[in-house]
């Protein structure tokens, strides 16, 4: 037991306290199972029912026959491999661009004292206050015809990658982490003749593993989950990520196949969450109370 909470250990130790505690505990377990796990179960098993069985009233809790054809059909008919690959490319690129450019910019703002650094940081933080989604239309027009070079990034993964770099939240997380790093370590490296890039690469980055992990996860999840922006950027069906493709194809496809595709689309992020859950949950908790 670490710290005491609303209820004292003494209250919980009494017979009545124990009874109430276990009742509430069971209640919460049942509630969580019904509210959060059952819908997921319903989706995974729904995809394994036959088209007749899924439309039947009252429904079957467990499929009468387990069909895997929903999953295999979704994989083949809805071109899931292509759309999943598109999503992977978009997410990986956005992650790489963010990691390189945001880290470099955060390092500069934190340690290199650029002229107008305060003003630039202010401008970046101000974008946190601006509702991002409200600006998608002018952002779309910018991406469709970049100023000065007049190039269009529509139907190009760069249209996802570059705007992803303008992520004030991640940049600020990095900058604040760099601010806390002890100055003397970096100065020692400089005295030993290391340049700025060398210092960043061999001193700062190895010390920043935790924050880089958090930023990486945020970057990947954001692209994987996004819908409105890729909907605007990719009018070309072959280049759409899975989220956009699912909605476009949902109109004229058999229900069991659609549900199977939904399950497949969810697997990567859910799997990543289950693997890194400890870090993700710690990251959310820490980032929020401090921020």
């Amino acid at each position, binding site marked *: 037991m670490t*710290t*005491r*909470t*609303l209820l*004292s250990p003494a209250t919980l130790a009494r017979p009545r306290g124990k009874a109430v505690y276990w009742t*509430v505990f069971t209640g*919460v377990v049942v509630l*969580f199972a019904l509210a*959060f*796990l059952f*819908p997921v179960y*319903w989706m995974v098993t729904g995809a394994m029912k036959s088209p007749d069985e899924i439309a039947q*009233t009252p*429904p079957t809790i467990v499929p009468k026959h387990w069909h895997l054809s929903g999953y295999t059909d979704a994989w083949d008919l809805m071109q899931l491999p292509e759309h999943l690959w598109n999503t992977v490319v978009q997410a990986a690129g956005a992650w790489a661009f963010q990691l390189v450019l*945001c880290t*470099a*910019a955060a390092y*500069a*703002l934190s340690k*290199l*004292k650029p002229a107008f650094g305060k003003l*630039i940081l202010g401008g*970046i933080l101000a974008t946190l*206050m*601006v*509702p*991002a*989604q409200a*600006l*998608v*239309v*002018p*952002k779309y*027009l910018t991406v*469709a015809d*970049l*100023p000065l070079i007049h190039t269009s990034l529509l139907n190009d993964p760069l249209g996802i990658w*570059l*705007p992803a*770099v303008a992520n004030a939240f991640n940049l600020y997380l990095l900058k604040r982490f760099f601010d806390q790093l002890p*100055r*003397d370590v970096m*100065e020692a490296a400089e*005295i030993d003749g290391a340049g*700025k890039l060398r210092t960043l690469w061999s001193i700062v980055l190895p010390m920043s593993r935790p924050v880089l992990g958090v930023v990486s996860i945020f970057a990947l999840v954001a692209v*994987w989950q996004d*819908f*409105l922006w890729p909907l605007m950027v990719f009018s070309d069906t072959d280049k759409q990520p899975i989220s956009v493709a699912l909605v476009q194809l*949902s109109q004229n496809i058999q229900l069991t196949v659609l549900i199977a595709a*939904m399950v497949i*689309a*969810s697997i990567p992020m859910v799997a990543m969450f*289950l693997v890194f*859950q400890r870090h993700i*949950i710690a990251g*959310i*908790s*820490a980032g*929020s*109370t401090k921020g």
Partner: protein
Amino acid sequence: MTRTATRSPVEPTAVRQVQAPPPAGGRGRRRLIDQARAYAFLIGGLICFALFSWYPAIRAVVIAFQKYTPGSSPEWVGTANFTQVWHDPEFAAAWRNTLVFTLLALLIGFAVPFVLALVLNELRHWKAFFRIVVYLPVMIPPVVTALLWKWFYDPGAGLANETLRFLHLPTSNWSNGTDTALISLVIVATWANLGGTVLIYLAALQSIPGELYEAAELDGASLLQRVRYVTIPQTRFVILMLMLLQIIATMQVFTEPFVITGGGPESATVTVLYLIYKYAFLYNDFGGACALSVMLLVLLGVFSAVYLRLTRSGEDDL
């Protein structure tokens, strides 16, 4: 503390000689090189922010006063876009729906995770299980969540009505009924997002020193009084920030109405962002879309500023 002040005592003379400033004009040059180096690191991120955050914000305001069709040169039209959007029959519906959605999301989507976090914080067993399960829906892509609930809301064999039938309760039209569509979407948004709020609030609850509860209990405070006089004041800042973030997020709701209801039935679930999307991509009227964006921007900006001012001034009283 300046850099030289911290450095000089430990710096070996040999190094200092190497770095000794060359005679005239060297200082300025050195500073220029430092600046160039700093900007070399900064430039990539800076360009992205300029292009995809700052420029679009300015552009929204400019295009709001233009007749703008991609390909042809824009034309200044004064406030015509604003008056035209204002007279759109869907304009009032979109704002009303967005505000009602935000309000309902605040009542349901804020109260539920708040109480859940309070209860979870008292449970001594299966802690990791609860945290994983509550966050699971957040990890499911929002599009999948929306499609999943669209299926649940199916009036025939959807899970929602099947559950009601199983409990011998009257069935509902859910997202297909004019009266129930909006609240149905609020339920989806709450289900999908409450995990984040629960985890953040749980972290805040854990930072409350246990002695406060002990002292309150010694003073004879009941359970509810302890919540009222210890828990809530101690986590006030987190509550207020979470509320602001949620309001800003729900005012921009798009995926749920777009996927589940398509704005219907009879514009019952058209939101402001959905209307912006329609103006741009269905009506090809980018001026109107930007006029709406500017309205949303100004409203949320003023709201955030007032909110922050009010909550901060409250802090001084404490």
